[in-house]
């Protein structure tokens, strides 16, 4: 116990190691593999991302021009981002917010976003998922 006392005094005299989390949020580091998104206007629906994906979370239908992404199966490894020849896939530095329901994101050839909901989710969450 007495061997710990200098540490306790040191910790009392120095700044805290923890943050008051919801009030103070540490800014994200650059190039962190966070949320995945597809700029559908650039996407050629070639399907390379679906072939390379180790967790098989992407489905591409070239004829129908549909890109489907199961974000609960995604492991955020960034392989698809590296492989994308059209450079339409990107990863944000911030992580995905928690979601209330399991959902897949479907993007069609026209720059139009449609989210298939399996359970009802709060509105502000569904806005986040659109990004």
């Amino acid at each position, binding site marked *: 116990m007495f061997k710990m006392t200098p*540490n306790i005094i040191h910790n009392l005299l120095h700044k805290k190691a923890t943050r008051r989390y919801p009030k103070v949020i540490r800014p994200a580091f650059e190039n962190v593999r966070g949320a995945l998104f597809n700029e559908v206007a650039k996407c050629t629906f070639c399907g390379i991302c679906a072939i390379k994906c*180790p967790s098989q979370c992407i489905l591409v239908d070239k004829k129908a021009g549909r890109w489907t992404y199961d974000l609960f199966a995604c492991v955020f490894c*960034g*392989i698809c981002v590296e492989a994308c020849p059209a450079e339409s896939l990107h990863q944000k530095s911030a992580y995905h917010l928690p979601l209330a329901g399991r959902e897949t994101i479907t993007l069609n050839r026209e720059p139009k976003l449609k989210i298939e909901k399996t359970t009802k989710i709060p509105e502000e969450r569904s806005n986040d998922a659109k990004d």
Partner: protein
Amino acid sequence: MLKTVIPFGPQHPVFPEPLHLKLVVEDEVITEVVPALGFVHRGLENLVHLRDFQQMIQVVERVCGICSMMHAMCFCQGIEDLMRIEVPPRSKLLRVIWSELHRIHSHLLWLGLFADSFGFESLFMQFWKIREKVLDINEATTGNRVIVSVNVVGGVRRDLSAEQMKWMLSNLAWAEDEILRLETTLLSDYTVQKRTIGKGVLPREKAFELGAVGPTARASGIAQDMRMLGYSALDQLDFEPVVETDGDCYARSRVRFHEVIQSIRLIRQAISKITEGEIRIKVKGRPEGETFSRIEQPRGELIYYIKANGTKNLDRLRIRTPTFANIPALLGMLPGMWLSDVPVVVLSIDPCISCTER
């Protein structure tokens, strides 16, 4: 006194992962231990038939939640050996830097859990405070905190800039100061010594006979460290295995504590030796043949057996993890111990059950 069987685990406050031990006790003294495994088996080895050898890197990274980098590195080294690929020197040093960062954060996690196993909660918090900084380094340099996903066949996916290396060194200097401040608490405190010295003794001959690996073997006086094989760029770096001779829980905590400091010095050496150059070479063709790949994980020697047949899917992948090798040693340590010492002794081998069951 009649014999009683007491179940220990799979749910127990000291266990981060599910391990079940049937403890046969006589008057609170252990006489026999029977382990039961298989609570987190996922069948990852069999995925070689469904995923190609490039995708398997992401799968083997998920074998272990702590030393993911080492698994991917071992697998990539095996595939590179089969395909006769010479990895660029810069990427070899980068692999060493990230693998040593993994060793630091794994040992800090263990030192915290070990302190927690004998009820020293504040020491647990202190070690995890330092570990958080190491995870920040991982996140800033690789893009993720634990599953760093930097290895590919033929090199690494990320590079380190000069500023990042400088920032990493300043953070590691802070971490070293903080760790050294805890040295007297962990290694000279009366209560800590009372709970660890002479507990779970594994003599040198017995450790050798039971096939102990890693810090468990080194604490019993066996100077066996797979890093001495000089894989990756470790042959360019100067270090000696940390060895203790007592073979008890205290010796094992000493070995891991000094290995954290050793790893920080190895990263400094690696950064001083790094040269400009490419980090990844283009890989053509498919692996064929069979190979063994061995590296030193934080818990000991990790072995990958890879058999490839020239197609994109491998024939067979077998992973022998260090905890698998250390469980017989654990069973050799426990008889004769008091029931109250079991959590400390079990944690002293740093069991990683997800690794063992794959």
